């Protein structure tokens, strides 16, 4: 017979969520998730490359219509946010709670700033009559419309990820302030950081494809 009595077993089971925290497991799960995110974008990159191959000339011309200025500023904003993200993790690992909070808040502000700039950029373009199916685009050769369809789809999906990322980071901010993420247990912030860096990396590919190659 087993030595564990039933009340004891039940008591043990009630603490079931007290799974010993597997830091490496959490990170592994996050890396796998990031892989699925990359694959999600890869479908769009595939479409982009096929259509770029079909309509090389049109994609070149259409690429000149995007506002490189907006794109460049946004690239800088997002890269800086990745830096502050990394600094926030470094701070919590050294036990400097409020420094970490400061850096994380700047990351969130930069992320939201990115979205505001993106919004301004889209508004300018739509005001200029550049959107799929617009009378202006229909006057151009067919590849033009596809370029902007891809542009809105890919930057839109990326923007959605920035938005979700900001939500995650705000949650992390609350966790740090409430002491749920600490020097001894920073893994959730690290995982959130990985996600944020992925968003950054995707943008690093989107930026040249839509703003620079023309």
């Amino acid at each position, binding site marked *: *017979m*087993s030595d*564990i009595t*039933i009340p004891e*077993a*039940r008591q*043990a*089971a*009630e603490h*079931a*969520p007290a*799974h010993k925290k*597997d830091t*490496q*497991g959490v990170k*592994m*799960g996050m890396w*796998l*998730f990031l*892989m*699925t*995110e990359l*694959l*999600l*974008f*890869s*479908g*769009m990159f*595939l*479409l982009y490359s*096929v*259509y770029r191959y*079909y*309509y090389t000339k049109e994609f070149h011309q259409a690429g000149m219509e995007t506002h490189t200025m907006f794109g460049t500023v946004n690239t800088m904003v997002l890269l800086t946010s990745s830096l502050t993200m990394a600094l926030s993790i470094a701070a919590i690992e050294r036990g400097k709670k409020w420094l970490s909070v400061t850096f994380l808040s700047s990351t969130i502000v930069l992320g939201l700033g990115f979205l505001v700039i993106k919004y301004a950029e889209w508004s300018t373009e739509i005001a200029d009559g550049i959107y*799929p*199916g617009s009378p202006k685009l229909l006057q151009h050769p*067919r*590849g033009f*419309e*596809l370029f902007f*369809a*891809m542009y*809105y*789809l890919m930057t839109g999906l990326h923007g959605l990820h920035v938005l979700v990322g900001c939500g995650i980071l705000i949650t992390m901010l609350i966790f740090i302030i409430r002491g749920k993420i600490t020097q001894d247990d920073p893994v959730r912030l690290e995982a959130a950081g990985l996600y944020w860096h992925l968003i950054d990396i995707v943008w690093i590919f989107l930026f040249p494809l839509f703003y620079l190659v023309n």
Partner: protein
Amino acid sequence: MAELAIPPQEESVVEGSYLENLNGRKGITAWIFSTDHKRIGILYLIALFSFFSVGVILGILLRLEMLSPGGKLFSPQAYNALFTLHGVVMIFLFVIPGIPVTLGNFFLPIQIGAKDVAFPRLNLLSWYLYVIGSIVILTALFWRGLPDTGWTFYVPYSLRTTTGVTIAVFGVFIVGFSSILTGLNFLTTIHRLRAPGMTWFKMPLFVWALYATAWVQIIATPVLAITLLLIVISRVFGLGIFSAAAGGDPVLYQHLFWIYSHPAVYIMILPPMGIVSEIIATFTHRTIFGYKAIAMSSLAIAFIGYLVWGHHMFVAGMSQQADFIFSFLTFLVAIPSGIKVFNWVASMYKGSIDPQPPFLYVMAFMVLFCIGGLSGLVLGSLATDVHLTATYFVVAHFHYIIFGGGVFIFFGALHYWLPKMFGRMYNKKIASWALVDMFMGFNLLYFPMFVMGYEGMPRRYFTYLPQFETMQRISVVGSWILVAGLIVMFVNLIHGSMKGPRVGNNPWGGTTLEWSTPSPPPHENFETEPVVTQEPYYHEEALTK
């Protein structure tokens, strides 16, 4: 086995089992808020088999229409809607989540000696996503009309039709996330939570199969997700991504769709293959032949399975070189499947075979899977495919693989593990007769389709030429016999799980870890953490014989 065994308990010990509610929760909330992988597995079982019943009823209606030519039962539009819903429900809500989310959820942690999956709360979230996605899909029933595109949602028709494609596709998108999260959870679980001594090559073959499946799930599903999202966005905002009029390429949709959906076929069939290995090892009372070959062939199938999607598109206007390459790769993927079948047969040789119901299901699987697999090669070679594509031959082929192969083993696995899940036994005699009935009904239903397809009967038509009448009628009668068997089987299983006589912890003489713990298993699966010292299918008595 002796090394693994935990002292046996009296039969009546249900107290302390996972079926007992915890934390003062009662009734349904004790289940739908539980993060116990076993309870989540049961929740999935209930949800999946509800949808399976819906799919079966739709299938019966589709067959009934074929009783005589001329479409007397449904209008052509209704028929289109019915086969679309049958496909969507069966593929996305039943066979793709299928074995991993139900029996995988229940037995993966137990088989590797863990207390739960790596992320229990994520596991529960996956179930909710699945349920929400299903509800969204079914909303299409009542809002804007049922989609009539077929389950593949091919453009350009899926962009043009006014039926509720947008809603249904969005539902499938949500269900896809559930699938991704489950795969991610299982991969982390297998990597991180194996019991002491459970090295990679001491893992049961079901775990290997789930491992390969989980990789396919997380690598292929995101591609489907984005493709379906593109359909939704194209419909809502009128984007021309896949529309030839706007310069887009409709064939690209087919590529993206099958880049996911062909690997998805292996999501459907790999877990059953793993279970076949388990059942054969248990009921032949000897170790499995070619353990490593079977484990590795799962990975090989998962890998090559990525590279064969083009064989769905031989008539879609790909280049000839592409056709040749995809055809060649398709033949290649048959090799690891063959390795498995030969190993299973070799395992039975000189084993002491105990023909219990689960083993009989495996025998039925062998026959049906071989017919399905070999007919797949006929479709995989270019010349014959041009003749047979989009005919009943294709319908027969994938039903033999997915239903005859995959789902029959799902049933067999329920018969195998039900005593472990509920600590009770069903009526074995009824179980065996139900199988005989289903086997006959199945072959009557689908085998004539091979013949009709060869003679040119196209799939998805609401009517047919008079020359097919006899064959069609045989097939319709087969569907009734099959359903009769299904009903008997389910009643027997449900009755057995609630009222059946109690059985001990190891009624079959299995050697994997789940048989060393009480039936039904306790909340955290094991009373003491197991330590693994033997290979998974080590039968003591086999050596002394």
